């Protein structure tokens, strides 16, 4: 166990090996690893971006759905309001129409009644006149009593 030339030889060999690793081995691997790290970093960045855009579009679609829902609710409310309104209108109209018809019918009836009354009166006057004529023909001169008769007739009317 003694030191000899081997020591220096080994040191030279060590130096040569270090030089080889520093100059030749390490750079190759460093390049490969760095490139891979860059690829991975890029991929991660792309994934992050994708996630973000997904988030944005999710938010957008949610917004759209919400808007659509609101719009639909609005439309339904409007339709309901309109329907109620239409029903009301129809009801009012029908009532008015009914009232008018009723009034017209009543007027008609009154007219008819008046007409019937008139006719009745006419007939009663005629009948009375006829009765009176029959009675008076025998006793009274028609000519003298014509005034009377006409007056009677007018009264009856």
């Amino acid at each position, binding site marked *: *166990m*003694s*030191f*000899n*030339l*081997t*020591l*220096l*030889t*080994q*040191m030279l*060999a*060590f*130096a040569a*090996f*270090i030089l*080889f*690793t*520093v100059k*030749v*081995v*390490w750079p*190759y*691997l*460093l*390049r*490969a*690893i*760095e*490139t*891979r790290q860059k*690829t991975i970093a890029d991929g991660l960045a792309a994934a992050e971006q994708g996630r973000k855009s997904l988030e944005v579009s999710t938010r957008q679609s949610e917004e759209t759905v919400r808007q659509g829902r609101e719009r639909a609710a609005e439309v339904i409310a409007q339709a309901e309001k309109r329907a109620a309104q239409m029903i009301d209108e129809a009801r009012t109209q029908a009532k008015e129409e009914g009232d008018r018809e009723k009034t017209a019918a009543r007027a008609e009836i009154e007219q008819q009644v008046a007409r019937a009354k008139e006719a009745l009166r006419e007939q009663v006057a005629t009948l009375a006149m006829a009765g009176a004529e029959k009675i008076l023909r025998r006793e009274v001169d028609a000519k003298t009593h014509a005034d009377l008769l006409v007056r009677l007739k007018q009264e009856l009317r």
Partner: protein
Amino acid sequence: MAAGKELNPSDYIQHHLTFFRAPLGEGEFWTLNVDTVITSVLLGVMGLGLIWWVVRGATSGVPDRRQAFVELLIEFVDDQVKGIFHHGDRNRFIAPTALTVFVWVTLMNAMDFLPVDWVAGALGFIGLHEWRPVPTADINATFALSISVLLLSIYFAIAAKGFGGWVHEMFCAPFGANPLLWPANLLFNLVEYVSKTLSHAMRLFGNIYAGEILFFLLWLWAATGVAGSFFGFWFGLGWAIFHILIVLLQAYIFMMLTIVYISMAHEHH
């Protein structure tokens, strides 16, 4: 174990602990542990070459299993560096260095898994009777690493603070800038540098060397007979499994300390 020799425990261990040495000049220093150098360089070339081969075709898309394994390894190392080093671009030097240390030390430690006698047998077959297959059980290899780390940490200390700043720190930290305290500061810093380097190298060496010795003892036991073989096998298996932990743990610790020492060099006091 060379063929034709009597089995003798001390010879056996001695044999496995003998380096394949090549004298290159006068004196003990001018020898080279050929086995350590060749094994470690081969392992480094294999390990780092494999990683290079995989990352060369690395795709930034979905990685295949090969690439995923290498990326797992590199990201593991990079995570450790990221947690400790906050003094600039770690990709420029410290992270690849930590990777080099971890891969190389793991592989060198892992040579311990190979059954020593099979290795010895195979190498003996081609005429190499003395060959230590575990480079980190050679103190030269571990000190080569830790002294390199020491030099790197001094280099980065000077690079981060300037030479003047570094010298100032050597004399004025940690106790204070009073001239009376300069010797104490300098002594403290020198001891710190030396002890860091020593413990860094000795920890790795001690663990792996001890593991190797324990394997030798178990295989010696296995050579004593049926009972020895039986227990040798089971204890050997247990130790090998436990050694997986030690191999990885020591490589991890060595890497972490390398990162810590180089990071500390960047810090201003």
